[in-house]
């Protein structure tokens, strides 16, 4: 018997290539005659573009072409709005998207103005300084609140204000609930921007074959199929003339989604004119400007509670920084609205946001995608309420959790996938109890903390809950083929950026067909192999593409059984599939190898019977009505040096529930990475803009990614509450690790400093310098 791989710590199929340096990334594409591209980018955040003089650059030896907006003609059109807003009644949305090269106006530092094509990247960079750009500066829009005041310069002058969108969502009657409350806690919260910081920067390589009229584009994208379809349309080619390959991609984390970045649009266009292969590889400095970012939000939020700590309602009002353009619609702030509800029974909820245009790089989802903000707001309000009511932090959470009998639970507001927010399943109380037990919450509070505090040590514990909407539609597809060699191929559209699709999807197919995981070759991210689907985002790869792979594999299984039944002369339900063979169950006869069966199913002579298809191959699609809801609890123990304000994380625990687990090893890897990202956001990573939207730390020297000595060992425990929304019971896990980290960090640090310090952390990130200031200010106030 081939042992089922589900739930096993299966090692990855893709690792050998990555570990030996053989795996191909986009920047590894080197073609004869290849030219290299660099972009002249705006040094000003906001201004009128009065003139571009590229004459000297065009003269420089080694420069092949210089293009400005004027050279693009009709191709210089604003890019598409990628995600239309969900149909929330009364919503306002102004979609403003970017031109491939700026014309008339620049709106952020780094906006591309001219494209230089040269024999090497070295020469292309030499030519950057040759281009003279004349910009008449306009005061930059930086601060979210100031951006909405009258008289402020407009990022998009055809609009009435810098408001990009406005949405109100309501559930129940918050005003009435508030009137009945014993206590209302209200605070202002900030959660600032960071970069995704995939270690691989973006890259695009293009080869246009003018004789075959075929274009191949290697692209560091999370969504090759939409990119192919969009580019074909823009370039006036058939979709079949364009092949987009997302080979190995060195980390995605959101910004490598189907952005139609200027570079993605311009290289194919130029390749068709120059008839030479082109490549652009973003450098790290460009990445800080040219690749999208996320996180800037300001909240004014209040929670109304009864004196026994039950949440009667929440009202949240927030501003969401969308940067200079808003191609990604309302995904981030809607996620914030929905995720704020957490695992709690919140009967009355009023949530309103305004998205704001600023002169900063474009905002699109980065791992977490607005969810951490919502969790930060509700978890912080609960902490403050617990303190004011004299209720223990874990206890107040327990009192408000949705019970296991409340599913599916309709929250009556709209989620990012344009469907109402419905939790599919969950079991929150045991998760919280398990986390409290593993971290030793009671004992820590009762014994360890007082003892350590008496010896001068400032230690604290934090514990926070979250739920995460994952695995949304619209759909993905997969084609499973048994080749005559016996190898099973599984082709799907989602790209892979390290999540382990080559293994996880192989496990799904292997278990359906009774073959080894290593015998399933997964092909992803190549439109020549599969061209229906969307991409890898919203923790959906395993859920949606996985379900499609399962369906396709089950269909192939049916074909194997049908054909096997005919050949072996036994009824299909008497057959078993194991070790890559179909045989009669319990018989000593070895049966038939899949490869032989595949040959028989594709005969060179004779007829394929009417109503059947040749070969052992099936294509299937999966489109969930709505996403599935993962959940979890994070707990952290920290020690704060009260003199230097340094914070050391002593323990970090994640108890989480992502439904049925395909591969615990990979799930743990996803969680570890997410937590590290969350720790970065909480404590290290900060994009510092001055009052003219100049980024002050566009390098890895000053933008601090957490290192191995900054991330503690992470303890994990798994719980499995399967999703009823897909056959396998799957929920997504890719983003879970980073969602509650800021909230749990804030709670733990406050707890370490103790109630006497009077420090309240309502802002993320929180550097030692900021913490020092908070400690100092509250110390003075106390005196």
């Amino acid at each position, binding site marked *: 018997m081939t042992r089922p791989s589900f739930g096993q*710590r299966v*090692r*990855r199929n*893709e*690792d*050998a290539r*990555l*570990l*030996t*340096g*053989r*795996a*191909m*990334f986009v*920047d*590894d594409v*080197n073609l004869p005659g290849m030219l290299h591209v660099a972009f002249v980018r705006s040094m000003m955040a906001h201004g009128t573009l009065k003139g571009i003089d590229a004459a000297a650059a065009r003269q420089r030896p080694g420069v092949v072409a210089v293009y400005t907006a004027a050279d693009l003609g009709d191709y210089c059109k604003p890019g598409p709005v990628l995600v239309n807003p969900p149909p929330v009644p009364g919503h306002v949305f102004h979609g403003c998207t970017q031109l491939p090269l700026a014309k008339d106006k620049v709106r952020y530092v780094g906006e591309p103005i001219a494209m230089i094509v040269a024999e090497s990247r*070295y020469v292309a960079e030499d030519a950057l300084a040759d281009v003279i750009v004349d910009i008449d500066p306009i005061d930059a829009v930086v601060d979210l609140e100031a951006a909405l005041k009258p008289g402020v310069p407009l990022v998009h002058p055809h609009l009435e204000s810098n408001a990009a969108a406005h949405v109100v969502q309501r559930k129940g009657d918050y005003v009435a609930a508030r009137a009945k409350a014993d206590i209302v806690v209200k605070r202002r919260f900030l959660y600032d921007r960071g970069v*995704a*910081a*995939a*270690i*691989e*920067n973006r890259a695009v390589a293009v080869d246009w074959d003018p004789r075959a009229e075929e274009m191949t584009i290697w692209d560091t994208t999370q969504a090759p199929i939409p990119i192919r379809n969009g580019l074909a349309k823009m370039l006036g080619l058939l979709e079949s003339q364009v092949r987009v390959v997302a080979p*190995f*991609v*060195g*980390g*995605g*984390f959101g910004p490598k989604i189907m952005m139609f970045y200027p570079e993605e649009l311009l290289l194919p266009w130029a390749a068709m004119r120059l008839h030479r292969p082109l490549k652009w*590889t973003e*450098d*790290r400095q460009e990445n800080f400007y040219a690749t999208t970012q996320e996180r800037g939000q300001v909240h004014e939020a209040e929670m109304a509670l009864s004196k026994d700590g039950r949440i009667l309602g929440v009202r949240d009002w927030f501003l969401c920084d969308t940067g200079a353009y808003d191609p990604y619609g309302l995904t981030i702030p809607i996620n914030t609205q929905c995720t704020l509800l957490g695992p709690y029974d919140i009967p009355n909820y009023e949530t309103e946001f305004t998205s704001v245009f600023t002169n900063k790089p474009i905002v699109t989802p980065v791992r977490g995608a607005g969810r951490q903000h919502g969790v930060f707001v509700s978890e912080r309000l609960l902490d403050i309420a617990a303190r004011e009511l004299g209720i223990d932090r874990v206890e107040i959470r327990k009192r408000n959790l949705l019970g296991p009998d409340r599913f599916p639970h309709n929250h009556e507001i709209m989620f990012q996938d344009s469907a109402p927010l419905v939790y599919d399943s969950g079991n929150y109380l045991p998760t919280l109890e398990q986390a409290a037990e593993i971290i030793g919450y009671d004992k820590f509070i009762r014994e360890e903390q007082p003892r350590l505090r008496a010896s001068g040590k400032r230690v604290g514990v934090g514990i926070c809950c979250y739920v995460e909407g994952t695995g949304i539609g619209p759909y993905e597809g997969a084609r499973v083929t048994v080749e005559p060699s016996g190898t099973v191929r599984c082709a799907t559209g989602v790209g892979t*950026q*390290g*999540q*382990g699709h080559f293994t996880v999807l192989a496990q799904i197919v292997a278990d359906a067909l009774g073959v080894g995981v290593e015998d399933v070759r997964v092909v992803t991210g190549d439109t020549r192999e599969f061209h229906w689907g969307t991409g890898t985002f919203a923790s959906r790869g395993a859920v949606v593409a996985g379900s499609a792979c399962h369906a396709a594999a089950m269909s192939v299984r049916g074909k194997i059984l049908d054909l096997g039944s005919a050949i072996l002369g036994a009824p299909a339900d008497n057959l078993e599939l194991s070790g890559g063979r179909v045989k009669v169950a319990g018989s000593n006869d070895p049966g038939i190898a899949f490869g032989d069966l595949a040959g028989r199913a594709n005969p060179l002579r004779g007829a394929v019977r009417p109503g059947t298809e040749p070969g052992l191959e099936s294509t299937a699609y999966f489109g969930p009505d709505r996403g599935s809801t993962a959940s979890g609890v994070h707990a952290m123990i920290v020690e704060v040096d009260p003199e230097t304000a340094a914070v050391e994380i002593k323990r970090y625990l994640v108890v989480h529930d992502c439904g049925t687990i395909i591969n*615990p*090893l*990979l799930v*743990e*890897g996803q*969680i*570890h*990475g*997410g*937590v*590290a*990202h969350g720790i970065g956001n909480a404590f290290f990573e900060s994009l510092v803009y001055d009052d003219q939207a100049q980024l002050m730390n566009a*390098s*890895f*020297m000053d933008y601090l*990614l957490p*290192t*191995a*000595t900054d*991330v503690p*060992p*992470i303890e994990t425990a798994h719980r499995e509450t399967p999703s009823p929304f897909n056959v396998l019971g799957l929920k997504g896990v890719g983003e879970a*690790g980073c969602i509650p980290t800021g909230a749990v960090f804030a709670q733990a640090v406050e707890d370490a400093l103790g109630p006497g310090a009077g420090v309240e952390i309502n802002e993320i990130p929180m550097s030692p310098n900021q913490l020092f200031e908070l400690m100092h200010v509250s110390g003075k106030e106390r005196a």
Partner: protein
Amino acid sequence: MGANVRVDVTVNGTRHRRDVEPRLLLSDFLRQDLGLTGTHVGCEHGVCGACTILFDGEPARACIMLAAQADGHEILTIESLAAPDGTLNPLQSAFRQAHGLQCGFCTPGMLMTLTAFLRDNPKPDEPQIREAISGNLCRCTGYQHIVHAVQIAAGTRAEDAE
């Protein structure tokens, strides 16, 4: 400006002679001129560690060295680690066992850094391992499984430990 200079360098045991522009970075030389694309470039200012190679046996950042400086020296890259038939060496194998890589982009730099580290320090404890890789940024793994991989390679952790 600046005539080409001769680089006579042994990479992974093979001697290469090239004339290069003095400003050519060693990382670009390895990747473009020699086609050894396993060495990855992540920041080009010496912080992320993805381009770490062994230069005369010691770890060095290829993105902040000139190809010209390699003249007369020996370099080992990620491509040197596995056996010619592709069999993974014990460190590579431990990375697979421990799931010490996800997207794999930082992995070549991690492996080269650790190759020198384990040679000099065959039985490191966890803080030593973490310090050893603290100059190599990874955005995917949170480092924990990399630490496990090093422990497996050093024989201080069982291969199937959870």
